[in-house]
């Protein structure tokens, strides 16, 4: 072992010591967080898999970033570990060992160069500047220096002048990196690992969608999150895990519309709030668009939201809860949970909902319907169509949940199409009629957990009085609430979306479909169906049965873009520069489709609200009905025609 190699090993040891101290100091801050149930053993065991499979599945969507990260992180860890092992005399004297070490550092150097190429000469807007711009130099210095020292050692000290220079570089770069561990870019390494172990939604790694909001015990002394300590400790770890890659920012519809929300900045503000005497001044990424001024100070024991704090309330209320940020985040951070926790405090404790959201919540409280309309009028859309009532039937194979869309004239047409199809396929179904209350989705997303829980319990009580095998609904928000969120209150149902159900009817031959030839259709995935429930195939399969040309938008499936209708955003109505549905409609138009197929009352309302020359908007049920009527009109294909 050369002396230089020994010094390199000691440098790495020093680095580890510095990084360990700083990381421990940071990790101690997590203790202010609330308790959470974490299966540590399972989490630790699953860590390699969660990292190598789940994280890399997301990182791999950007091939360049994936290679860059594999080289930089892999090289850095292997190189440093080998250099440390070199302190073991038996290994340190093997030349081949140092040659391997040099190879690892060379890989790390290549990774560092890729980091640099991505950030220089021009840094993409989604990446943060500041300390992050230093990163490629530190990486290159440490990895390059380590490489030279190891190379020299593998040649028995033949290159000692180069080795000396290398050692100097390695020491500067290595300590620089270690010093970044508590507040700089390197924090994501240890916080990210801890986050994977103690993740608040472990189901995400077990193939579940795991998207239901956690219920809030309404007798907790403080409802929702006001200060950093109101978050569970593993949520705080999650905030610290953010690497500021900006993928969430690119995906966020509110950011694109120029509303004052940037999920990356939000997570950074939350992470910054952990530090006593915190300020948001060191953040060097894109700001909240049209940011409302805030003091930008906080810390443990201090409020997070408010003009005098870190985050402006308008930022919270801009979110459509579309989960696009969560879907894109390589660190598996749960932005929506954080936003809802913050909203819960605003709504339940302060009554600080946006002015226009107060009325729907009030109407829900006293009339179970956000616009205060009579529950009995929910079935008015069906005038003239037979609509069997549960109250008179006592039970049916299918319980058709109508949802809020039933009151809208436009969406009433969709529901009429669906009901006609059910009759045609001779489905045994019934509706609750005046007994159906709002499902509580709006209340819950606006932070009114008390309102949601009341509605959920009332609906569960109603449902318990009837016999049915499945609940069918055309509203993905109701579907999500009934299927995933009522469980916590004792309501377990098999819930099926109308697209999956119609697909099933078509597959089993209960609906005969004609061809809607020459129609060019693009399908807009509802967030609450695709991302929340993973149902992206059935609607497409169904559309393909219609004999149409199906075109895909650039963002589709689980990575689709929101229409702007979720999370109470339409009633919160936070001002931006553009409207989200206009952006989405432009994406649909770019495919050249003549029809945008939708599968949700909110999407239908938002996209129908787009003005000017644009494709027609039709719910899939309407298209299916058209196809069925086509089939009926072609007598040769009907049963009677053959007879």
């Amino acid at each position, binding site marked *: 072992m050369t002396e230089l190699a020994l010094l390199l090993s000691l440098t790495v040891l020093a680095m580890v010591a510095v990084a360990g101290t700083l990381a421990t100091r940071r990790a101690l801050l997590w203790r202010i967080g609330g308790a959470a149930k974490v299966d540590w053993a399972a989490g630790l065991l699953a860590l390699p898999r969660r990292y190598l499979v789940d994280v890399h599945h997301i990182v791999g969507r950007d091939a360049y970033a994936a290679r860059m990260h594999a080289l930089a992180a892999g090289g850095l860890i292997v190189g440093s570990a080998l250099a440390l092992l070199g302190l073991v005399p038996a290994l340190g004297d093997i030349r081949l060992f140092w040659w391997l070490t040099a190879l690892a550092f060379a890989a790390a150097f290549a990774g560092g160069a890729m980091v640099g190429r991505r950030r220089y000469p021009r840094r993409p807007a989604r990446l943060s500047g500041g300390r992050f711009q230093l990163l490629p130099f530190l990486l290159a210095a440490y990895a390059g220096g380590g490489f030279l020292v190891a190379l020299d050692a593998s040649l028995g000290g033949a290159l000692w002048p180069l080795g000396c220079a290398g050692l100097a570089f390695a020491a500067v770069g290595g300590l620089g990196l270690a010093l970044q561990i508590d507040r700089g870019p390197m924090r994501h390494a240890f916080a990210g690992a801890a986050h994977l172990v103690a993740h608040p939604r472990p189901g995400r790694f077990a193939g579940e969608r795991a998207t239901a909001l956690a219920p809030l015990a309404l007798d907790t002394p403080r409802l929702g999150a006001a200060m950093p300590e109101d978050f569970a400790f593993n949520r705080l770890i999650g905030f610290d895990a953010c690497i500021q890659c900006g993928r969430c920012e690119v995906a966020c519809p509110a950011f694109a519309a120029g509303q004052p929300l940037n999920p990356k900045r939000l997570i950074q503000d939350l992470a910054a709030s952990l530090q006593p005497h915190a300020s948001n001044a060191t953040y060097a990424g894109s700001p909240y668009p049209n940011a409302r001024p805030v003091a930008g100070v906080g810390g443990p024991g201090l409020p997070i939201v408010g003009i005098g704090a870190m985050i402006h309330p308008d930022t919270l209320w801009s979110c459509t809860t579309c989960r696009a940020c969560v879907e894109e985040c390589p660190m598996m951070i749960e932005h929506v949970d954080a936003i809802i926790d913050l909203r819960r405090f605003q*709504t*339940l404790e302060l*009554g600080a909902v946006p002015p226009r959201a107060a009325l729907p919540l009030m109407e829900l409280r006293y009339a*179970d319907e956000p616009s*205060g309309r009579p529950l009995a009028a929910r079935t008015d859309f069906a005038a003239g169509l037979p609509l069997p009532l549960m109250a008179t039937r006592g039970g049916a194979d299918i319980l058709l949940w109508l949802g809020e869309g039933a009151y809208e004239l436009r969406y009433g047409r969709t529901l009429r199409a669906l009901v006609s199809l059910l009759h045609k396929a001779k489905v045994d179904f019934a509706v609750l009629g005046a007994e159906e209350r709002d499902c509580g989705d709006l209340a819950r997303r606006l932070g009114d957990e008390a309102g949601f829980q009341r509605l959920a319990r009332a609906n569960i009580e109603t449902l318990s009085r009837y016999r049915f095998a499945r609940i069918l609904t055309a509203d993905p928000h109701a579907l999500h609430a009934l299927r995933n969120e009522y469980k916590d209150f004792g309501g377990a149902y098999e819930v099926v979306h109308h697209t999956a159900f119609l697909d099933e009817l078509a597959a089993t031959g209960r609906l005969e479909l004609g061809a809607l030839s020459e129609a060019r259709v693009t399908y807009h995935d509802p967030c609450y169906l695709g991302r929340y429930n993973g149902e992206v195939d059935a609607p497409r399969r169904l559309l393909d049965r219609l004999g149409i040309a199906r075109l895909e938008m650039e963002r589709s499936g689980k990575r689709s873009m929101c229409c702007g209708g979720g999370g109470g955003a339409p009633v919160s109505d936070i001002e931006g520069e553009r409207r989200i549905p206009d952006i989405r409609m432009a994406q649909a138009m770019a495919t050249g489709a003549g029809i945008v197929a939708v599968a949700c009352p909110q999407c239908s309302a938002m996209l129908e609200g787009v003005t000017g020359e644009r494709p027609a908007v039709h719910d899939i049920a309407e298209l299916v009905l058209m196809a069925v009527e086509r089939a009926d009109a072609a007598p040769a294909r009907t049963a009677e025609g053959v007879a």
Partner: protein
Amino acid sequence: MRIAVLLSAGRHPVSGRPAPVPVELQALGLALGLSDEVTGLHAGPDIGPLRDALGHGLPRLIHLASEAEDDPVPGLAAALASGGFDLVLAGRAGQGGEDSGLLPYALARALGLPIVADAVALAPGAAPGTLIVEQALARGARRRLVIRLPAVVTVHPAAPAPAPFAFAAARRGIVDVQAGPSAAEPARPASEERPYRPRPKLIARAGAGASAAERLKAATESASGGGRLLVAPSPEEAAGEILQHLRALGLLPGR
């Protein structure tokens, strides 16, 4: 300033479920804009969802427990008289009960206080013990009055919306149940209950045989009410005008 806000047992106009009366919550909003010393007052058998007023910022609610048939006026009057309130706020009418809007007047009479109707904004007056009341008049007109306290003021639905509901505040607020003196309500005239139907708009009729233009004019002009606007008339002049108007409507025997 000590303020009492009267809260009545309302019903949601569509669902028919017990609910606070929106205009009374607006009264609460105006009260909280003036002072922190606000007390809610309800006389009746049940507090029900009036508890929710606590969620709209009311710090304390007094429930004068009484039977449903009891007349609330004596109990409320006694509580208001002993409470030492500078200002008593009420909605212009309840919602879901008799909705006659007479209770504040009956209370004002029982307490010997002046009453001002239909406030949309309140502010402390320049002189101590006075209050500036902005009053809603027909068709969006506003009138500003300065009144001497104590007084009873009713609030108009055009007043600003109340603070949104906060569940935790409702949970924390205090409800103080006191026995209200029971007082049988004076026998009310026999009445009949019917589902509500909006009253058809009264349209002034043009004389028989009038031209289309005249009929149109009559139909559209009725919306503007008619009548005469007198600015600062002398009391005699004003009284004369009112008598004349009532006579024209056939409500007073002719001279």
